[in-house]
């Protein structure tokens, strides 16, 4: 790409990318009342502004050069100084485009979706704040700035999950999300301390260049990467820290689409790709990442089969897809993982927004058992939803096919992983079509009142659906498999970010073209089989999932999510509460205060005892005095 603007001149525009949403947040928070209904539009337009600026940066920077600058020194002591600075390179650019692009569409969608809510303006101020922190996360030039965004998006997630704050169950979900994220954050923080102590800084340039000095498998790097991965587990909802994400569906649906599907939860993947050199140098961690990813992918997919809440299914599918991405990272296929992040962002946002549109039409009902036959009532939603479902199932030529295929191809040399991931994507295709058929096919199962209420959503909601479905169809062509003899644009664009890792990991296991075609066909065949099974079950036989009370045996375990929440409750939450009371009542009030009160009692006791000496008899006093003097004299004499 021909360069016509010096990078230095891009600093100001790049600063405005995060500042615009921040401005929106302040405007809406302090002048929300005065702005009235213009507020949400302003918020959306500011995000659109960020998007346009991102495009501007993208066009001018390309992947040949990057922008890395410090704004001011944030903290410093002795020789150490930690700067507040930004880095715009191919990786950040991709994330910038995804965040602001999808972010804008979801803002637009929310104008329709949240219109009747009394917290309409507040909702947009939080969304803008989220966009700001998310941009900070991907634009920071050091782990510290990334951490600001990292915790900031956690805060926004907290605020938005608990958006309807009068409902205590929602508040619990919000609190749970924040606290589970904090557990991960502690790992991240400790990882940063290791880097600061041993690698001499926190900015990516220093850390990564110093890390490259270490030999492969150095214990220090393994520790650092494992700690960072703990952070990623929390943020990206991997085993065992995933339970907050399904609960997070308590938030308004656009929030689930933006935060808990498209952007925030992929922060862990972004972070690992950003520090790919560290991870490549720590093969053990890669192994851990891979297995955690595979396990999460399979585990969440299984739970997804038995969920009846339309958003819960999507939530578990998100967890499962994130697992798939981590598996890709663990296999060293960083760009493939990133590619799936992008395609997933499109089709999962589309799925959530579609689900939102369904819920909107149903007047707030989320249980699939009460839906059905919606196809003819809400055509636009249904068609876009079908596109997204095909995409996530990995049917050619939708976006998910390409990115999934890449990951499976990368896993092929590792047979067990490949089998497990294939099974997981087969299950994905099954439960996604189960969701689709239950919602849109057969006949309507809700009440008459709901049936009367059914209507297609306003244009602000359907337009984003349409745009996103275009991407869900087309985004896959950004990364054509080698067998099609087309340039893989996505890998090419990200090449500078991962080139060091490539040389560390050695040549990737390339499958030859015949195998690759075979793999594609196999994957498609599996997906189609799943779809057919789902069709037979839910359309031909018109099966409707039984009420919760009638679920039995293994199915009940699955429906109850393997009782993981209950387990955590019993193992961590309850003991902590008991411990709290024990500390307070036993140790504080009994043990420590025993000493305190004992010393006070000692003083009192001494006083009470010595008081008896005061007989009030002056003669006795005199006698004691003389006697004591004589004793003293005697002592003097003896010495």
């Amino acid at each position, binding site marked *: 790409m021909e360069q016509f603007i010096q990078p230095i001149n891009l600093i100001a525009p790049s600063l405005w990318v995060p500042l615009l949403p921040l401005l929106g947040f302040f405007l809406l928070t302090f002048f929300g009342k005065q702005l009235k209904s213009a507020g949400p539009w302003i918020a959306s337009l500011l995000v659109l502004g960020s998007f346009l600026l991102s495009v501007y940066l993208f066009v001018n920077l390309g992947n040949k050069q990057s922008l890395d600058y410090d704004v001011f020194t944030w903290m410093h002591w002795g020789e150490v100084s930690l700067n507040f600075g930004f880095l715009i390179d191919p990786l950040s650019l991709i994330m910038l485009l995804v965040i602001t692009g999808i972010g804008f569409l979801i803002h637009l969608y929310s104008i329709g979706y949240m219109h009747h809510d009394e917290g309409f303006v507040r909702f947009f101020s939080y969304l803008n704040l989220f966009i700001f922190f998310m941009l900070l996360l991907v634009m920071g030039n050091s782990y510290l700035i990334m951490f600001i965004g990292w915790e900031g998006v956690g805060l926004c997630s907290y605020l938005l999950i*608990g958006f309807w704050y009068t409902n205590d169950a929602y508040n619990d979900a919000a*609190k749970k999300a924040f606290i589970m994220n904090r557990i991960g954050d502690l790992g991240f*923080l400790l990882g940063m301390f290791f880097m600061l102590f041993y690698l001499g800084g926190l900015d990516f340039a220093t850390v990564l260049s110093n890390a490259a000095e270490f030999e492969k498998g150095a214990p220090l790097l393994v520790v650092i990467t494992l700690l960072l991965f703990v952070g990623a587990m929390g943020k990206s909802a991997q085993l065992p820290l995933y339970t907050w994400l399904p609960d997070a569906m308590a938030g308004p649906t656009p929030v689930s689409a933006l935060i808990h599907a498209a952007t925030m939860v992929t922060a862990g993947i972004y972070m690992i790709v950003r520090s790919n050199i560290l991870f490549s140098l720590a093969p053990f961690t890669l192994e851990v990442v891979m297995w955690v990813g595979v396990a999460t992918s399979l585990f969440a997919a299984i739970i997804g089969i038995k969920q009846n809440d339309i958003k819960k299914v999507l939530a578990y599918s998100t967890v499962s897809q994130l697992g798939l991405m981590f598996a890709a990272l663990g296999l060293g296929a960083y760009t493939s993982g990133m590619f799936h992040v992008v395609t997933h962002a499109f089709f999962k946002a589309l799925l959530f927004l579609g689900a939102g549109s369904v819920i909107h039409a149903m007047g707030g009902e989320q249980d699939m058992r009460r839906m059905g036959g919606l196809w003819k009532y809400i055509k636009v939603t249904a068609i876009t939803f079908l596109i997204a479902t095909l995409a996530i199932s990995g049917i050619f030529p939708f976006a998910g096919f390409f990115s999934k295929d890449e990951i499976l191809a990368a896993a092929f040399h590792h047979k067990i992983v490949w089998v497990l991931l294939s099974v997981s994507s087969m299950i994905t295709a099954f439960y996604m079509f189960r969701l689709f058929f239950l919602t849109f096919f057969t006949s309507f199962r809700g009440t008459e009142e709901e049936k009367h209420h059914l209507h297609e959503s306003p244009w602000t909601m359907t337009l984003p659906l349409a745009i996103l479905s275009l991407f869900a169809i087309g985004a896959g062509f950004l990364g054509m498999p080698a067998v099609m003899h087309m340039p893989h644009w996505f890998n090419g664009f990200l090449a500078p970010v991962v080139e060091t890792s490539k040389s560390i990991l050695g040549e990737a296991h390339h499958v030859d073209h015949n195998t690759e075609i075979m793999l594609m066909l196999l994957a498609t065949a599996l997906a189609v089989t799943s779809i057919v099974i789902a069709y037979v079950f839910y359309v031909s036989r018109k099966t409707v999932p039984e009420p919760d009370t009638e679920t039995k045996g293994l199915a009940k375990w699955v429906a109850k999510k393997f009782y993981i929440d209950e387990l955590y409750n019993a193992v961590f939450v309850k003991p902590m509460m008991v411990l709290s009371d024990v500390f307070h009542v036993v140790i504080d009030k009994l043990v420590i205060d025993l000493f305190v009160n004992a010393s006070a009692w000692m003083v009192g006791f001494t006083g009470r005892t010595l008081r008896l000496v005061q007989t009030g008899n002056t003669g006795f006093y005199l006698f004691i005095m003389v006697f004591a003097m004589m004793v003293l004299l005697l002592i003097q004499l003896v010495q």
Partner: protein
Amino acid sequence: MLSLLLLLIPLVFSIVIWFTKGITSRAAALVGTLVQLVFTGYAYNVFLAEGSKPFEYLYQMAIKPNLVFHFSMDGISMLMVLLTNLLLPLIVLAGFNRFTERANVFYSLMLLMQMALIGVFISFDAFGYYIFWELALIPIYFIAFNWGGQDRAAVTLKFFIYTLAGSLLMLFGFIYLYTYSPQNSLDWAVLKANPICSCEQGWIFWMLFAAFAIKIPIVPFHTWQPDTYKTAPTQGTMLLSGIMLKMGTYSLIRWLLPIVPDGFKEWQSVAITLSVVGIVYASVIAIMQRDLKKLLAYSSIAHVGLISAGVFTMSRVGLQGSLTQMFAHGINVVGLFFCADIIMNRTGSNQVEGIGGIRKVAPRFAGWFMVIVLGSVALPLTNGFVGEFMLLFSVYSYNTWLSVFAGLTIILGAVYMLRMYQKVVLGDAIIENMQFEDLKWNEQLVLGIIGVLIFALGIYPEPIFELIEPVLKTLTP
């Protein structure tokens, strides 16, 4: 002379306020603290303009040759004086929409307290330092005793005796140092230049540390604190938690570290362990606290535990982090107690459970409360994060495992703070027909200032670093 003036202004106003009545008293108190604040601002400017040269003032007493009042202000003192004089107007303003009995005595004591606190922060001679240290106890005792809540007699007595016992040990320590210092002097510079034989520093350390540990308080010397915080009137609690406990942490840096460096090193591991255990211990207790003010009291113990752990690492980052965090914690904790006070005043309940629904009726209050809660759970870009990051890093540099343990504070802090916030502010109102007005002008002002400070210092902490860095260079190797 500037330092002496800073001492005299509150004293003069304290005397003047005594002779006023009712509403005039608190107006006079506000004027007094504002004058002091403006003057502090001037002193701060002069200080920076003169290149951080300490303001020296020496008053030679004729009675005994080397007992002097030596006032001086270096960067650390300046920071603490700024904190004190910044918080005092806010604390006075916090009481503006309510009736205080015998307001003239109340505010007079408050300004006396201010004087004593500043005296502690600017004394560079242990003699004067000790006098101010004890003087600071007197007004707060009367404030807690006369305007306090339930059980105030027993609670304040415990508080008074407890801290007094600590101070007594400190006095012994100083007398011992006095007799063994070469010129029979207690001047800070002299004591620092002529450390006592390291064989004796161990127990001198404990003599002084006992006083500081009680004041801070470090677990297990803390049992006076939750009850006192609960019982004292909220403005008194603000004074206690916002400024008075900083006397302890400040003294660790000012007196303990330079004067008995070897003793400090000898007992470093014990003291850090105590502090870190205290963090987790207090945080865990805070999770299930039923009383709002006691919950905040335990959270305060957890926070200052981290501060003292940072001091005991004896590293530059630890000291810098602890001073930064002292400033931040002072602001946050005053805000938290103010919010608690507003809640207790309007609902008449001091329980964590059984309120709820405040956000619906008072969104502005809920918003500012949230900001302060975020500052106290150390969210990045709030003032709590800067200090906590540096402190945890200093503990990490000292011992990795200890930092894992200390790091639990970021998890547990979120647990108890968010639980409290959820129970009290969110949800539906549990109290029937709850009357909860949104913020009044003075409350809005106080919380607004605190909120702005939380973000300003979180984004740009440089002014604090600028003050303390030159001093810390001389204190650490």
